[in-house]
């Protein structure tokens, strides 16, 4: 079974540009999450999708960030316009419906996308 995949693995852009990160969850996982770690800080929750619906977006830092999950499969996270403080590693994770056995805090993470804003 393929794990969570993320694309690209690295992205270097200039301040003011737009970047779109993609996450493909484990097949069949209804829950999809975005997290990020900015330099020197802890991994922070951004938002949670259940299928195509945003369940919790309390961690989104501001309206420059837009996450979508059309069709309930893969998700994109767009940063527009990017600022210097957006640099960091963006992780995507997915989990099963709890009725399938796993608890909600059993999440499967992708390798992350390292974003550098110059």
């Amino acid at each position: 079974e393929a794990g969570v995949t993320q694309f690209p693995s690295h992205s270097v852009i200039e301040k003011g540009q737009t970047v779109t990160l993609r996450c493909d969850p484990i097949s069949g996982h209804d829950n999809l999450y975005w997290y990020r770690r900015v330099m020197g800080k802890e991994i922070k929750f951004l938002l949670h999708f259940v299928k195509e619906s945003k369940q919790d977006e309390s961690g989104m830092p501001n309206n420059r960030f837009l996450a979508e999950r059309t069709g309930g499969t893969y998700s994109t996270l767009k940063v527009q316009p990017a600022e210097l403080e957006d640099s960091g590693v963006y992780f995507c994770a997915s989990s099963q419906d709890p009725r399938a056995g796993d608890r909600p805090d059993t999440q499967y993470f992708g390798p992350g996308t390292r974003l550098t804003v110059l």
Partner: protein
Amino acid sequence: LAKTTQPISMDSYEGQEVNITCSHNNIATNDYITWYQQFPSQGPRFIIQGYKTKVTNEVASLFIPADRKSSTLSLPRVSLSDTAVYYCLVAGGATNKLIFGTGTLLAVQP
């Protein structure tokens, strides 16, 4: 959500047993304790989860005393490849939001 406290770093040698303790004094009745492992340039990986007493799987054991205010992750006979950051998280069943602390950087030496 309960806050956790764990050592910033630990050193060990190959073949030793390593125990990493996590404090979670404000744990709630419905909270579970979950440990994740993270290697450099990878995302966190779920390794073990428990509610009380002892849980063991092929990777580690988790010991939780009766008051549940702390837990200990035990890694038997570590190898160099166990060098990683280990995160202790506490969460209730209704939440999907994982809250990561600083984790414990375990460095295993030959």
